[in-house]
């Protein structure tokens, strides 16, 4: 169930350049479960910034009633968020949307998780849950440059982890798609989250096998009421059929919606 709660910061740290990892504590955590869902955050009390900010859930810790997000401090909202310290509160609405279907990968099968930049974080909870149920996990994680890389160690503990950078300053030089081909990675189901061009490339090259993509879109309400975040569906003939990224997604099966 979607709840709104003033959650308490238990930890915030900068884990890569401009990349922050924030852990919040509160009852809302008991509603979380599906990897790939997100929360909608109000980062200040006043009217600037006015709107909430959508951020993916990256780790869920039910025992401690905590969850973690990883985000890049870029615009006004995320910069304000990055100034929160332990014991400050953050107004959280969530959990929102539909995440990655872990049921699509059976125990013993192999899942390939492909992340790009700030799309990497939700894959961590996904990987944890897949690994826990006996799915073998491979990760291909793309970043712009060495200083932007994060979570490599954590992912490595769960399965093979290939890091790519656009400029070759760390790991494999090039796009994640080339890395998948070059390393000749075998898999049964692919899950991905990252920039739209990356998702498009994946859909084009790997759309013939099970593939689930997490999309981003500018949001208003985050709960499905304002129609800010719609996309066309793949099979639409009239042009009026749609899905909402916030409530039908953010994760869709490849082909379900037009990227």
């Amino acid at each position: 169930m979607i709840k709104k709660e003033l959650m308490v910061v238990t930890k915030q740290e900068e884990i890569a350049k401009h990349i922050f990892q924030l852990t919040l504590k509160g009852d809302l955590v008991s509603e979380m479960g599906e990897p790939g869902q997100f929360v909608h955050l109000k980062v200040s009390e006043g009217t600037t910034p006015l709107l909430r900010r959508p951020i993916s859930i990256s780790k869920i810790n039910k025992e401690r009633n905590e969850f973690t997000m990883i985000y890049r401090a870029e615009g006004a909202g995320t910069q304000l968020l990055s100034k929160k310290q332990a014991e400050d509160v953050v107004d959280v609405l969530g959990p929102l949307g539909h995440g990655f279907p872990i049921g699509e990968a059976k125990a013993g099968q192999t899942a390939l998780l492909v992340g790009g930049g700030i799309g990497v974080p939700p894959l961590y909870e996904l990987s944890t849950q897949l690994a826990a149920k006996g799915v073998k996990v491979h990760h291909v994680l793309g970043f712009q440059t060495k200083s932007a890389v994060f979570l490599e160690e954590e992912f490595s503990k769960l399965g093979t982890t290939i890091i790519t950078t656009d400029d070759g300053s760390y790991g494999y030089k090039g796009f994640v798609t080339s890395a998948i081909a070059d390393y000749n990675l075998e898999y049964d189901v692919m899950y991905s989250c990252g920039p739209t061009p990356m998702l498009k490339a994946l859909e084009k090259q790997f759309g013939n096998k099970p593939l689930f993509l997490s999309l981003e879109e500018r949001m208003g309400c985050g709960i499905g009421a304002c129609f800010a975040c719609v996309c066309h569906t793949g099979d639409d003939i009239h042009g009026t059929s749609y899905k909402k990224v916030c409530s039908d997604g953010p994760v869709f099966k490849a082909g379900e919606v037009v990227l």
Partner: protein
Amino acid sequence: MLDVQLPGLSLKNPIMPASGCFGFGREYSNLYDLSQLGSIMIKASTQEPRFGNPTPRVAETEAGMLNAIGLQNPGVDKVVAEELVWLEQFDVPIIANVAGSQVEDYVYVAEKISQSKNVHALELNISCPNVKTGGIAFGTVPEIAAQLTKAVKEVSAVPVYVKLSPNVANIVEMAKAIENAGADGLTMINTLIGMRLDLKTGKPVIANKTGGLSGPAIKPVAIRMIYEVSQNVSIPIIGMGGVQSVDDVIEFLYAGASAVAVGTANFVNPFICPEIIQQLPDRLRELGFEHVNECVGRSWK
């Protein structure tokens, strides 16, 4: 102390979500009991289904936001058959927002939707800035607005409220033309037309280029227009534009609104409507009122 009587509308309280900011209520019904609301202004319905504009459709601005949804909706038939029937489970009168590209569209939708048993009033959206044809033209020329009002009044089974655009030089002239054409009430204001440019690309952030500006930023314009119009017409006004708190509601009532709609604030805090409804009685008492009606038009009475 909160009940309000308006043409067609017998409201438990003067608070309702504004059109387009609450869908058809389904999402919010998961969060609280919609029967608490004074009314619900549902999303605009058009004759045919519409997808609306390409995304991005929203952009944030200082104390406000731009939207260019473009009247996305499943078409009046589906709205009547699916959304309005679903809404019947709640004890809340519906105000149906009606849009179109030409007079005939409005007439078609109005006739149809006004037959639904929980639709107690129509809100003619003659002021949507986000569609290429119709919409805003109806909202800026008094004669055209009057014609449309008359045509819709003829077919509507329920009272007709007309939603005014703030993008005009003389809002009183517009309001009077619409009153004379037989409107039962006014709702105001719709969004101001605005734009935001992306610093890196230099291009508009919103795919549709321009969008409608809503939120706290526009409240002073809304208050001024309601203040002016309420003194010059004798039909009631449902006020909106930047309401965020119970105090904002009271400011709108003072200005001359008889009831108040909450738009953008639903995105910031989805519980805002029931929260305001709950706070209103105490706040009214604190300010020395025994009934919400006593606030209406206090700024000029």
